[in-house]
């Protein structure tokens, strides 16, 4: 017959040893009255305990004096070695590399890696050209991400928007490189015109490439224009196609 309260089984020995609290003691005692299986287990544990109390202590083949004589030169050598180089690397490691310190260091490293992974995820995942443009990602981090079709709703000037490059155009006299950014590779609309001004040393993206553009958004209301622009473009990141 098996016990219906297996949790009490592990309290049988503490019960025999008298180390249970009074409520636990009473609860085990009450259970024993109605549980044959636990009474049998208690009997076995009591028998086992009687036998365990007779486990023989084995005498070592050597006396402790003789054994220590063999160890003493190593202990003395260790002590002399220690006094010679009390602040060596192994010594410092031994002193400070406690489990607690190692755990704390590991936790700090993990948190730093997590931050690195979080903030540089986009760079790692494809924004390879960002650093080559000489613009740090942290500088562009505050730019608001927005889709091309929603730029008209934007009220924040610094934006980041993604799309495909079309019609790259170089105006040598004004020193401006302009291109359209469309949301789908084969669509012409919606689009936004992006302008790279002369002082910016940006790599001009290839036609059809998938990029994220960082810059200042504005509406161009000149004659024959009537579109939204990212002008000036401050950064271009290549994305996977």
């Amino acid at each position: 017959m098996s016990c219906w309260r297996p949790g009490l089984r592990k309290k049988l020995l503490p019960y025999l040893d008298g180390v249970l609290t009074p409520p636990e003691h009473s609860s085990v005692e009450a259970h024993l009255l109605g549980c044959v299986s636990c009474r049998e287990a208690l009997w076995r544990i009591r028998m086992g305990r009687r036998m365990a109390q007779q486990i023989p202590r084995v005498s070592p083949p050597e006396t402790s004096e003789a054994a220590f004589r063999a160890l003493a030169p190593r202990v003395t050598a260790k002590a002399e070695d220690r006094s010679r180089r009390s602040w060596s690397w192994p010594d410092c490691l031994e002193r400070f590399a406690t489990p607690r310190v190692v755990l704390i260091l590991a936790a700090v490293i993990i948190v730093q890696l997590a931050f690195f992974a979080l903030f540089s995820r986009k760079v790692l995942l494809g924004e390879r050209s960002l650093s080559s443009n000489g613009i740090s990602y942290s500088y562009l981090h505050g730019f608001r991400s927005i889709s091309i079709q929603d730029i008209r709703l934007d009220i924040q000037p610094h934006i980041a928007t993604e799309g495909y490059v079309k019609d790259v155009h170089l105006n040598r006299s004004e020193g401006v490189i302009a291109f359209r950014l469309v949301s789908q590779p084969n669509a012409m609309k919606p689009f936004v015109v992006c302008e790279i001004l002369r002082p910016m040393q940006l790599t001009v993206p290839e036609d059809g490439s998938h990029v994220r553009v960082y810059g200042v958004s504005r509406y161009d209301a000149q004659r024959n224009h009537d579109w939204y622009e990212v002008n000036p473009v401050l950064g271009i990141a290549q994305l996977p196609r």
Partner: protein
Amino acid sequence: MVGASSAYRKFREKPDPDWERRTVLAIQGGELEWFATLYDAYYHRVYNQVLYSIGDELQAQDLLQSIFLKVFRGLRYFRFESSLSTWIYRIARNECQDFSRRKRPPLVPLELIRGRNEEMDSRALSEDQHAAQERFGIIHRAVMQLPVKLREVVVLRYLEDLSYEEIANVLACSSGTVASRLSRALEALAKRLCPLRESL
């Protein structure tokens, strides 16, 4: 080594935290001769823990030396966050575990070939002594047949007289786990030694 045996005797009866503290502070202060006293006080206890853990006298003797060397090395940084005995038992336990992991080829204990010292003694044993020795041999073998995890709690509890909390400290587990392992070990011992129970 003056007074070492009396220190050990006192220790066997009741571990004395004051004695431990004074000894450790003296060693930390560079008085190496105190290490001999400490060694003597723990020599038999750690030897038994190691022997019951790995089951080989010669290896136990070797292991004992490396354990005490580690104790000596670590004593400088001992800050009394646990009792000295718990700390030493923990070092011994880790050494035994490392030893078992290294998986050296099993050695045939010399005593199996030549017999134990007691068996080699030429003087004749009385009938009672002979019966007691046989009984100890049977209990010893029954303990050695337990899995290591159960064996170590039995040895620490019934040979070294540690409390559940102290054993939990040595083994880095909870007191509940200690109680549960002990119960299993004792039940297993009772089953193995059932035929002996009348004589016990």
